[in-house]
């Protein structure tokens, strides 16, 4: 038999990271299904793929398959970034991925922004909560004056709530919270253990802040076309396996984070239901504004409509065909 075709895969995460465990499941699946004709050579955390320039690197063949982060890229992925703010009301990672699939079906621009690449996995994330050092957040008023590290896209929302949002490198957040430079951080529960936030904060406030999905793994088109047709098909069919593996690892990591934080005596704060409703309304108002102000010729309002329409149909139990198979 011929020597197996080798595809090089790179990720900035270490081998033990939950995302890498999902990658390993996908690798094992692909190698098994291909009967040994396809071999994936992984490179964990070796710096082979950058966490900032991964799209450019993948297009030029630094590796064949890679973890990508179009959502953190500061140019050329305006549509992918814009749509990530349109997920108000999502209830699960499955919701998030379904919405992205429907957006992708309606707006070719999302695919064009990844020209030269073929997405291999659409990824959502665990819902965001608010980690605070010294005081709980039950009502939106409790956010006033809190100095919070937030992802860039949430800055306008948090500002509107009277908080004092700021940006700082993720690596600085732990020491900054330990010393009280900041009062907290907007982050999912998995970071309570993974980034040790539970060590330096007393409250995890479960005001849900919606989270968008985006393509997080891709293969370069050149590498895909070089494969024999059956292997190409096999890879494309393996996408759902990867998506399911990531979603299940995320769920596990969330539980691990919660258990760890409970063990350290962290308090999990349930928000006042009225506060959650008001937050959701504000989130949607921000989304509407972002959609109306969308530049780079993006059909912001149409995208927001499709996203919200998909969520409504998922809620009413009539999963639209564009949503694809459930995770």
């Amino acid at each position: 038999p011929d020597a197996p075709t080798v595809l090089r895969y790179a990720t900035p995460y270490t081998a033990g990271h939950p995302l890498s465990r999902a990658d390993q499941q996908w690798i094992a699946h692909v190698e098994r299904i291909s009967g040994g004709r396809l071999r994936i050579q992984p490179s964990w955390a070796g710096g082979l793929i950058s966490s900032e320039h991964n799209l450019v690197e993948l297009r030029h063949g630094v590796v064949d398959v890679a973890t990508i982060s179009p959502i953190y890229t500061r140019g050329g992925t305006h549509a992918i970034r814009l749509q990530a703010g349109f997920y108000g009301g999502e209830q699960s990672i499955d919701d998030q991925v379904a919405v992205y699939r429907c957006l992708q079906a309606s707006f070719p621009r999302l695919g064009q922004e990844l020209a030269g690449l073929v997405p291999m996995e659409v990824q959502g994330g665990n819902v965001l909560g608010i980690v605070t050092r010294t005081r709980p957040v039950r009502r939106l008023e409790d956010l006033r004056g809190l100095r919070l590290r937030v992802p860039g896209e949430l800055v306008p929302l948090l500002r509107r709530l009277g908080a004092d949002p700021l940006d700082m490198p993720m690596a600085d957040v732990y020491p900054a919270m330990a010393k009280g430079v900041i009062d907290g951080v907007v982050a999912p529960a998995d970071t309570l253990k993974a980034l040790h936030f539970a060590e330096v904060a007393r409250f995890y406030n479960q005001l849900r802040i919606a989270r968008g999905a985006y393509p997080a793994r891709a293969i370069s088109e050149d590498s895909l076309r070089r494969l024999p047709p059956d292997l190409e098909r096999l890879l494309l069919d393996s996408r759902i396996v990867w998506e399911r593996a990531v979603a299940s690892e995320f769920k596990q990591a969330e539980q691990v984070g919660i258990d760890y934080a409970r063990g350290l005596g962290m308090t999990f704060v349930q928000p006042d239901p009225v506060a959650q409703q008001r937050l959701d309304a504000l989130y949607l108002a921000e989304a509407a504004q972002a959609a109306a102000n969308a530049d780079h010729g993006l059909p912001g309002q149409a995208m927001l409509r499709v996203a919200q329409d998909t969520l409504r149909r998922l809620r009413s139990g009539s999963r639209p065909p564009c949503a694809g198979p459930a995770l």
Partner: protein
Amino acid sequence: MTPELIGALSIAVLLALLALGVPIAAVLGLVGFTGLALLTSIEAATIKAGVVGWETISRYELGVLPLFLLMAHLCFTAGASRDFFDAAAKLLGHRRGGLATASIAGCAGFGAISGSSLATAATVGLVALPEMRKRGYAPSLSTGSIAAGGTLGSLIPPSGALIVYGMIAEQPISKLFAAALVPVATQALLYIAVIILLCRRNPALGPVSERVPWRERFASLGRIADIAVLIVLVIGGLTVGWFTPTEAASIGSVLAMLLCARRGKLTIPALRRALAETLRTAGVIYAIIIGAIVFSVFLGATGLASHLTALVIDANLDAKAAAAVIVVVLLLLGSVLDGMALMLLTVPIFLPMMVGLGMSPIWFGIFVVRTIELGLVHPPLGMNVYIIQGIAKDVPLGTIFRGVLPFLAADMLHIALLILVPATALWLPGVLA
């Protein structure tokens, strides 16, 4: 050619080019680029080199390096470094190697501001090397003690390396910081012991000055009161949380500028000179970092590191023997890979093995950061040594490596102690818990 063979060959080429006097940054970068081109394509290797170059100069975390250097150059402009070493000379100068000891203390103090070995070695080197030379210290002792002393910076909290380890290993960072304190204190004491022993054997290495009366000592201390205020403000501000470690560089520079103004040294020409020298020093360091990262990315892609680690795992040893073998593997890899890459590549593999052998992950964190930082000073490649050479250009690299050797011996003793008595790391976090 297999990737592993390309990796092994590239190391030979690297050493040959280095010996022939090609700039160190260019050797690292070009060998890495060529190797990467062989493994992927010229196009891919070029893009990767461009990414590394751009990210090195544009990342906030690395961007603070020139600001730390600016702080050092401004202290120099203010005459603060001269006064500091004058005071050290009056207090310790009558003891053998007193100024080298003061430099170790300076490294420890700066290490409490900065998270990185490189920043520590570069900043303290800029300040201390000319002062020691002026007082007749042998270049081998002065450069060696600062190259070694710089490694204190990556273990003393705040430690960038321990934060990264905590994230990979999912260990409490506060515990790691606490665990680092006793080992880092013993490390500094061992370095001081080395200096005293060296100077006792050969007094010409660190000349002794006359003992001065206490009145003069107090007077010299009075002259550095404003420097003491600067140091207390920076370390204190970090401790109580006025600013983050990365912001400390800017705050320190502003304070150093105020120091210049207070001493009447803040003239436009002096400022321009300090800035120009900061840029020159930073350029040397950036070039080396870019070259080292390109090379490191290439070696990571060859899979050489995973081969070596697989060998250790296959050998089925007990905990102490395994730790000893890990030291050897890390030192081998540490002569060609940069510290962060080494940690990211090997910790996920070695940690489960050592935990399986009954060792604490907290202990392993201290052990692994301690061992990896040796790679910064041991021959043939050592980033700290290159940085010192970039600062003290007329001291041959061989002299610096020779100067480092006695400290390396102390390092090995220290690591042996860490392996044989894990309590050196585990005692303090246990007490604090």
